[in-house]
């Protein structure tokens, strides 16, 4: 790490930011070394960035399956945990229609809980350690952090419209 420098560029508008990203690409700075922070969710296509990867959907799907199984267990499993089944109102011990309700609710609950869990895991939330950040992004500016070899710092700065400061 010591041979790289973290640089920050802050833009008011999307178009210059997109140009800057393009320039960085031209300078052979990999997408992995660029981190863009914005106050609104800017689609990756606008800045010419690769599609960000996320686990949220998969986790949610997995949660849904777990929830379905929990519902299945609650309705069709628990009544058989006793030696004698408890009968009520002449109904089946494990009736299907109410079971559908239980399974639906549990599926949705677990799906949503795990989607949220996915957000937390994927974004490493909560995380209170200081990380590269500028408060201006929440005023609508777009910040581009990028990592470049120490030697190319000047060159890049010359190309960039503006350099505020680097972190670390």
């Amino acid at each position, binding site marked *: 790490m010591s041979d790289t420098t973290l640089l920050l560029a802050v833009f*008011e*508008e999307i178009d210059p930011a997109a140009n800057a990203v393009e320039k960085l690409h031209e300078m052979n700075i990999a997408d992995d070394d660029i*981190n*863009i*922070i*914005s*106050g*609104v*969710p*800017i*689609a*990756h296509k*606008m800045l010419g*960035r690769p599609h*960000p*990867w*996320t686990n*949220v*959907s998969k986790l*949610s799907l997995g949660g849904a399956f777990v929830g379905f199984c929990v519902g299945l267990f*609650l309705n069709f499993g*628990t*009544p058989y*945990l*006793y030696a004698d089944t408890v009968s*009520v109102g002449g*109904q089946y011990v494990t*009736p299907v229609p*109410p*079971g559908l*309700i*239980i399974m*639906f*609710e*549990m599926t*949705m*609950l677990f*799906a*949503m*809980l795990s*989607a*949220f869990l*996915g*957000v*937390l895991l*994927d*974004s*490493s*939330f*909560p*995380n*209170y350690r200081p*990380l*590269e*950040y500028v*408060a201006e*992004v*929440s*005023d*609508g500016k777009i910040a581009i952090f990028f990592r470049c070899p120490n030697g190319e710092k000047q060159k890049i700065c010359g190309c960039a419209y503006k350099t505020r400061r680097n972190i670390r």
Partner: protein
Amino acid sequence: MTATAKPYSKSAKTHDAHHEDEHDMKQYLMYDPKPRGEMNRMVMESMTTTSWKFWVVFAILGVLVATCFVYAWGYLIAEGLGVAGVNRPSYWGIFLVNTVFWIGISHAGTFISAILRVFKAEFRRPFTRAAELMTTFGLIQAGASIFMHLGRVWLSYWLLPIPNQRMLWPNFHSPLMWDLLAITTYILSSTIYLFMPLIPDLAMARDRSTGWRKTFFKILALGFRGTEGEWRHLTTAMNIFAFAIIPVMFSVHTIVSWDFAMAMRPGWSSSVFGPYFVLGALHSGMGAVAIVLFIMRLTMKHMDYFIRKEHFDALGKLMLIVTFAYTYFFFNDYILQWYGGDKWTDALLHWLEEGPMSWMFYQLILFNLVIPAFTLWNKKIRQTPWLLALIGFIINIGMYWERYLIVPVMLTINRAPFTWKLYQPNIEIFLTIGTFATFLFFYMLASRLIPLIPVWEVEEGQMTHSLRKVGKAELPTISEFE
């Protein structure tokens, strides 16, 4: 973007003046953009500018919470339900009226934020948060009301899907059990759904505050910065929630209606109760949103910028549609009972229409069907905030009456006419005041602690707007980022 379209982004201001009607422009938040920093400042100011009037109201509510909620509930628990008005045959009383009512209120939040989000209805943006807060706080009141209703609330954990000491699990045949699971699902998911879009705004507030507020926002913002990945995870999850929470929302109120409809009782046993309840919930929820928006606009600084006539207008249209849909289901339920000719249902209808509570029945029709249907078609009325709030208030009274009629008044009539007794609320009145006070108390507290306007969503909306020239006219177009 097409060549003819002019972006309505921040730089639009610097463009040559459009000769648009200024007044008309003011109706639309999206066409009246301000820089993000300015909006941030306004939202932060609205949160921190507190007049003495606020504290007076807040103190009164605090006293009401302490007396009508905390003390009254403690008294109820200590004395037993004898201090309430429940009796045979009205074993259920206002507590369940309140439960249904608050769950109904809570539906508007989800409806506005999830359905309108899925259908990309732009006008939703500035008030999704206010509506979602209603969902969460309304559900808290609904949950509290259920617990007030229980005869032995200290044993309510026996309802949880865990085995007791003797390894006995709860009974999943019971609609109350479905209800418990559905409401739990709903309260958890809607709270998360409130929280996720709030994270960027909390981060914004974190960056703009000092002292204890900074710590508070820092903890709640979870360390959000706004990286591409964070946005991606967040928006993905929000999309999942938006789609998943809609069926959950429908299921919750349907299952609430099944608490009644599953019972072997005249008036209750109706297959239309599910959608009827859902529409009723939306009806009262929309009305409540109108009231909340009106109050926010009236009392909070800068809110007249964010909440405009277009929002009241759009809300009014929604309310009108819901009114028609509600009327349809109301009539559907009524004619089904009316035509059936069953002895007991007949008696029930007589009771509703001629009994001592018939005034409630007629007010229901007037407040829920007639007044909204005959006023909301008028654009002027829709665009007048206080009028819309008033109509929302009337609808909510009507909807409260509807639940009151369904729970204790309908319970009076059963198949054992020897037992028919009228229900008269007792301590429930105080506890009802208590739940309303608690709701408002929480809401006022929240208005000081969290940004009530989702600034990033508003900005996102403004960024997606543009004017497109068609012939001589310039028409707004909308595109989503995704």
